[in-house]
């Protein structure tokens, strides 16, 4: 089994997607995406519902493998290596590419166990107490929960739960964190805290965030990819990448008219 090579400083791209297409059964969900995700930056995916941005996101840690009918065409490289190569192990890849979901989904276990689980199954040899503290501090949650680590993760508020999920993700030292609409179930104050946290995490991790909130994309991200969907002959919808550039370009002088219309709120 091929090992995924360590972080290399030569390439500036964490991920490169070439002609990436995703099918569900015989339906083409996303077609021909070319993307380059630079290291230690925040990239946001925006676009109307059904445009395939979450689908593309889930290709980067092969979560689509878990959907029996899903099929991925094209190529995604992670530090220069094809992650859909048969010799690459998805379980190993997912330790290196963490994920935070739309709805906070802590395990129905103690706060401590929520953090320790990922480390334990991945054979962490260090001091677990220290790791739990460091991860919770990294997710700006330590001060709020340090006296109740034995309490259930579900006893926290929604915003705290989402930060617990971020702490859980960074506990296994990933290189990339994928965030699938991480703030859509949170109130504005919790959202702001998560956004501040993202700016800190950027120092150590590459972040890809899917968001429906265009202010969030323009506030937080360095690069923005705009996806759109068009009707297919079979009556379904097919997503495609319209434009990908630095965030200020996408929001101020996009090359495509549909991007202009979307970011100015005229559709979507």
């Amino acid at each position: 089994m091929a090992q995924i090579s360590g972080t290399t400083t030569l390439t500036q791209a964490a991920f490169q997607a070439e002609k990436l297409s995703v099918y569900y059964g015989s339906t083409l969900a996303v077609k021909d995406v070319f993307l380059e995700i630079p290291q230690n930056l925040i990239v946001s995916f925006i676009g109307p519902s059904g445009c395939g941005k979450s689908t593309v996101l889930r290709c980067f840690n092969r979560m689509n493998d878990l959907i029996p009918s899903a099929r991925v065409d094209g190529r995604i490289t992670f530090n220069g290596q094809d992650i859909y190569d048969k010799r690459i192990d998805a379980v190993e890849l997912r330790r290196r590419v963490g994920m935070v979901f739309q709805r906070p989904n802590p395990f129905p276990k103690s706060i401590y166990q929520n953090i320790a689980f990922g480390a334990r199954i991945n054979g962490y040899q260090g001091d677990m107490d220290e790791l739990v503290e460091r991860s919770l501090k990294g997710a700006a949650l330590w001060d709020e929960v340090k006296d109740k680590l034995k309490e259930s993760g579900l006893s926290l508020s929604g915003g705290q739960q989402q930060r617990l999920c971020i702490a859980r993700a960074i506990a296994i030292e990933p290189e990339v964190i994928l965030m699938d609409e991480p703030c859509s179930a949170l109130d504005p104050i919790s959202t702001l805290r998560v956004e501040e946290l993202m700016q800190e995490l950027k120092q150590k991790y590459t972040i890809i965030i899917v968001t429906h909130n265009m202010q969030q994309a323009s506030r937080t991200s360095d690069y923005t990819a705009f996806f759109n969907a068009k009707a297919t002959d079979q009556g379904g919808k097919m997503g495609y990448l319209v434009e990908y550039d630095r965030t200020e370009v996408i929001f101020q002088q996009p090359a495509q008219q549909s991007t202009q219309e979307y970011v100015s709120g005229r559709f979507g």
Partner: protein
Amino acid sequence: MNINEPSPRDGAPVLTEPGDRPQRAALFQPNLSGRYTLDRIFACFAWGATALAVAILAWLLLTILIDGIGTLNWNFIDSFASRRAERAGIKAALAGTLWVMGVVAVFSFPLGVGAGIFLEEFSEDNWFTRLVEINISNLAGVPSIIYGLLGLAAFVRLLGPITGGRSVLTGGLTLVLLILPVIIVSTREALRTVPDGIRAAGFALGATRWQVIWNHILPAAMPGILTGMILSLSRAIGETAPLLAIGAASFIAFTPDGLGSSFTALPIQIYDWVGRPQKEFHDLAASGIIVLMTVLLLMNAGAIYLRNRFQQTR
């Protein structure tokens, strides 16, 4: 019975509406009193159904207690069967039931839960799994005597050298067959109630399928799985027909000393006593029913205690 709903009173103030609203509002005929009457009729019906069920159960328990309490004493529990009613006891049947239920619990839990996990978490959706699913649902409805005949053919005749013929092991395995479909179905239901977010969270942290199931899905589903086990074991403990079909004896003067030992069980002993002409034996049957119900209650209490412990650790 208490219905807290407010009901309209005669002369109560009517909500007025401004402008041209009354004209369009006239198209609505709220008929509040009629709807409240329906409310009350349904509440009465629901209350009556509950009361009837409780009353019948109470009457049943009461008559059994009246008949059986007189002969229920330590001698009854500590004596073997006898042709003379005053010396007959339930020791062999009680021990037999405990042995058989032990076999049932030990075999049915891993087999049933394992099959449920396979079908729900591992198997792909193809013609084979669909065939298995249809079969399991149908097996849940097969009469218990059929399972008895299956046990007779499979465990007494075919596997006789291994099971020891009409033995504790044969009786237990036959009852396992009987309740497996129910355990499998209820396990799958319990697994389905675990949110997919938990699975996704586990996989996203680099867990393998088994690590996700063992660490997160099973603990979360365990209360539901144990509920299915309680119901299934309660059914198994009272089953008479399959045990009669495999030929469990009703007159046994020793307690089982192993899995290969012949045995009798509480429902068989009760059935035997009820069938005799003398009134004394009918009273013994009532005492036997009290013992059976007590074992059943203790078993359920244990399982409910386990279930609550799993719920608290969440």
